[in-house]
């Protein structure tokens, strides 16, 4: 019936947690001579496989350290998985920690172009959408001020406005619906909901089960890097409630 939007095939992600941080040449030579470098292997994700179909809105549930953010970063392409592959169909916009790519010395205006370029927009596209971005962020009078003088709420507002000005096919949300003040939060949730109507595929991480139930039609539970359940929102949230109690 419907086509896949994201195929995650047998993905595993390993981190080497060295007991002491070795990042100087001296340490490295001395420690490797003494054979003192020890790594604790840590599998943040283990053999995770699933397929998200077009138009699905999938909530990712799990306790702290379950691997939710790692999974999103693997899908966003920031991490390269140790094993396995991720296949994506269509333009993807990751909303991970908004505004992290901003340069503090740059003004709001310059950052719109920089961050836009980073997300793969063209210059013509940003020129065209510039007013819309500024209007949505409500930062008109601060747009020529260096970002370092912005409050954290202002930064996230600008980041959110830049990232959501496109209509992506796949949207990755990591706890971002809690940016800014109550007014902006409502506005941003409305914006995201309006994207849903256009049939966007969503991956959503949140600790609030209520928010996941409101937004998603499917969900999955991660525990210690393993995918333990994936399916309909109602069955999964029941299972999750049992788990957390």
């Amino acid at each position, binding site marked *: 019936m419907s086509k896949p939007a994201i195929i995650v095939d047998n993905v595993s992600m390993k*981190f*080497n947690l060295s007991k002491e941080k070795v*990042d*100087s*040449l*001296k340490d*490295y030579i001395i420690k490797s001579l003494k054979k003192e470098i020890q790594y604790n292997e840590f599998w943040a994700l283990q053999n995770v496989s699933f397929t998200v179909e077009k138009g699905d809105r999938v909530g990712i549930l799990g306790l702290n350290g379950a691997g939710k953010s790692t999974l999103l970063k693997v899908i*966003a*392409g*920031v*991490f*390269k998985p140790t094993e396995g592959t991720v296949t994506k169909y269509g333009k993807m916009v*990751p909303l*991970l*920690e908004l505004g*992290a*790519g901003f*340069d503090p*010395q*740059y003004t709001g205006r*310059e950052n719109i*172009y*920089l961050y836009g*370029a*980073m*997300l*793969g*927009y*063209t*210059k013509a596209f940003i020129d065209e959408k510039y007013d819309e971005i500024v209007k949505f962020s409500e930062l008109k009078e601060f747009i020529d001020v260096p970002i370092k003088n912005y409050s954290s709420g202002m930064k996230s507002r600008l980041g959110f406005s830049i990232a959501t000005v496109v209509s992506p096919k796949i949207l990755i949300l990591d706890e971002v619906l809690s940016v800014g003040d109550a007014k902006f939060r409502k506005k941003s949730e409305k914006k995201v909901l309006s994207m849903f109507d256009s049939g966007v595929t969503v991956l959503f991480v949140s600790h609030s089960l209520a928010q996941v139930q409101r937004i998603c039609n499917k969900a999955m539970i991660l525990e210690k890097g393993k995918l333990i359940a994936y399916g309909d929102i109602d069955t999964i949230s029941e299972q999750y409630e049992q788990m957390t109690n």
Partner: protein
Amino acid sequence: MKKYVDNFMQYQFLLSELVKKGIKLKYRRSYLGMIWSLLEPLLTMIVLTIVFGTLYGNTDKTFPVYILTGRLLYSFFSQATKAALKSIRQNSAMIKKVYVPKYLYPLSSVLFNYVIFLISLIVLAVVSVVLGVKPTTHLWQSLVALVLILFISYGCGMILATIGVFFRDMEYLWSVALMLVMYTCAIFYYPSKLLKSGWAWILKYNPLYCVIDIFRSGVFGEPMNIDYLIYTVAFAVLSMLIGLICFKKKQDDFILYI
């Protein structure tokens, strides 16, 4: 191959934004701004001329041009490689959040320094005209040197960027190495005495000295040294190759170390 070209075209706008950012931020909040890219080499030229010309009894009228050619090329190489070395760590916030081909960071660091360097060549042109060094048909050799130094800087920059991620010490080691390179580049002394001695290899094996020599022969209207040309072309190709291979092999691990 086509895949790589397509990929590059897609990120061309980002590359130009990153280059623009480097240039804009370098002189932001200084009163003279971009004028510093002209003023700085001019002032160092004056200092070096006084110390190594006047005080050492060198009466050659074109000595300032000689100093300026060496100093401009060297300072581009040093600035560009230093910036490339730090580029991955400096952009770690972005690397952790958005996927962007990582070679763009050292590349943009080298390119924005290259643009500033090309602008500062205006100083050289003016000083040459004032001191009566006229352009000749040999001037094209200088263009060859300009291309060569770009490739050498990017090749070395990528190698350094890769090492710099894993070992922070590289920043300090490299500034010491750069000092060594500077003294063996014949920036503010004539190489003739050294070339006749048993130490000639110090200069001849320094690719930066060879590039500077090619550049100078273009400016002063002499035929270039073909051996130097062959050596620097080989060095440029080799450093690019090693740089690309190192960088490509290690780039997926960067994120675990920054």
